[in-house]
């Protein structure tokens, strides 16, 4: 357990202090504010923007995709960099097991992604509260924020954190980049609907509908929500299993 915590701690530290991390976060926040800032134009365009839960839902499901994609790219070098810097040989010559090594990296990726999503949603909420020209229910905003972070951002962080760390150790990193781009394009071109969304939607899947529901078309597909959750968490765990089973990733044992 000590090894896992050591790896998690320093992986998180290295990633969270990288300048590109804050570049990705600020870029995502910028586009989110362009879309969701409670200006006259946006309030006119977006019928439900006066509802704080709608803000969190929209920030998470639409602009959160950019943040998710950025995290995928930034996390993709975690195993390759150890190979390149010789650190992996050091770790293999020590008492750390393969499982501890992989879990430490994965949890570091999860913590990193979850932190960024939390900051992203919280920053959106804070700017919304400060700038809105109308009264906002703090309780409703807090509830939406908590739902957003736990019910949506956390499973997304599992997917992004685990898959982005593990897959590049299984394939050429350029192939991983191609997969990430395809995933982004597919997600970005899948329009939101009051009907069930495809399970493979990362941030705009039906989990996000737990944050806010359309008053005229309340959503009610538990199966679709479960499918989305299974895709996100199952996808993350599958990437772990694939790496665990890879021969010649670790010592001879």
């Amino acid at each position, binding site marked *: 357990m*000590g090894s896992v915590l*050591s790896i998690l701690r320093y992986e998180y530290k*290295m990633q969270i202090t990288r300048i590109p991390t804050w570049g990705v976060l600020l870029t995502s926040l910028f586009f989110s504010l362009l879309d969701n800032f409670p200006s006259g134009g946006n309030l006119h365009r977006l019928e439900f923007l006066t509802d704080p839960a709608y803000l969190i839902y929209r920030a998470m499901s639409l602009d959160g995709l950019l943040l998710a994609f950025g995290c995928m790219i930034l996390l993709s070098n975690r195993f390759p960099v150890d190979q390149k810097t*010789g650190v992996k*040989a*050091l770790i293999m010559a*020590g008492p750390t097991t393969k499982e501890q090594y992989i879990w430490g990296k994965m949890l570091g990726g999860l913590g990193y992604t979850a932190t960024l999503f939390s900051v992203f949603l919280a920053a959106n909420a804070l700017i919304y509260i400060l700038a809105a020209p109308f009264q906002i229910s703090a309780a409703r905003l807090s509830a939406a924020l908590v739902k957003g972070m736990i019910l949506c951002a956390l499973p997304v962080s599992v997917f992004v954190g685990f898959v982005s760390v593990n897959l590049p150790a299984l394939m050429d990193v350029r192939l991983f980049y191609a997969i990430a781009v395809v995933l982004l394009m597919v997600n970005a071109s899948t329009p939101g609907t009051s009907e069930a969304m495809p399970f493979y939607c990362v941030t705009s899947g039906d989990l996000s509908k737990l944050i806010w529901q359309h008053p005229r078309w309340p959503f009610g597909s538990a199966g679709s929500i479960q499918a989305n959750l299974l895709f996100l968490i199952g996808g993350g765990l599958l990437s772990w299993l694939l790496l665990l089973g890879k021969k010649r990733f670790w*010592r001879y044992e």
Partner: protein
Amino acid sequence: MAAIEIHHVSKRYQNGTVALEDISFCIDGGVFGLLGHNGAGKTTLMKALTTILAPSAGTIRVCGFDTVKQGKEVRRRIGYLPQELAMYPSLTVFDFVNYMAGLKGIHDKNAVYAVLEQVEMLPFADRKIGRLSGGMRRRTGIAQALVGSPQVLVADEPTAGLDPEERVRFRSVLSRYAREGRTVLLSTHIVEDVYQLCGELAVLREGRLFYAGTSAALMERVAGKVKIVRLDGEDGLVALQKQTAVLSAAYEGHGISARIMDENMAFPQAEPAAATLEDAYVYCMGGKAYGQRLINPSV
């Protein structure tokens, strides 16, 4: 019980490359040198010792534990400095060594500060690794290997590329560590480091063991046979190379000064020279016409 025992170890990779072939020798303690040219199998042997690779045949025991069957016990007792270690440029010196210490189960900051002081890196503890010179990075590398005071330290080419001052500093760290009753295995192709540090050494060539024993005994085999021949030019050197083993050639002013191995005393008029460990090593590494297997009969 020897600190390290290597018995008939061979390593063949999946692509058919034979990296090691029937290597056997023992290391009792102190600083032991492993010499060999690039591709001789030194790094493969280091990796087998540190349990990263398993030998295809033979056994290796470190502090009495088999590296394949008791790898966990071996890993508790070794510190490893790999040949290529760039580390994480964004971490500070302290953070990196503390990270590696944490992986070894050491959560005492004082232990980290102690090793940093040992390698003279304490004043730079808060500096990021990306901003260190090559010598400082190597010292940081050796610090992470020393944390926890492992019984056996395995250093793969630790002084390659370092300036003379750093190399002297490194030697001092390694010899001080070995004096505390521990074993240091130093793999290098820099003969001077072995000469300064190691009482005993092994020489690998193309995956095979060429020599294992004391530095003095190896030098003794070429003692009295090293001579200096002064030549006018390249033609003379080419002709000389056809007659005998030329250990080195230095271009001086208008001529060439060649150190030769005069086994058959064919150059009685040549100037005798004191044999060095480098002469003995170069002779071991010579071509098939000159090389012969010099094995310490006690191994």
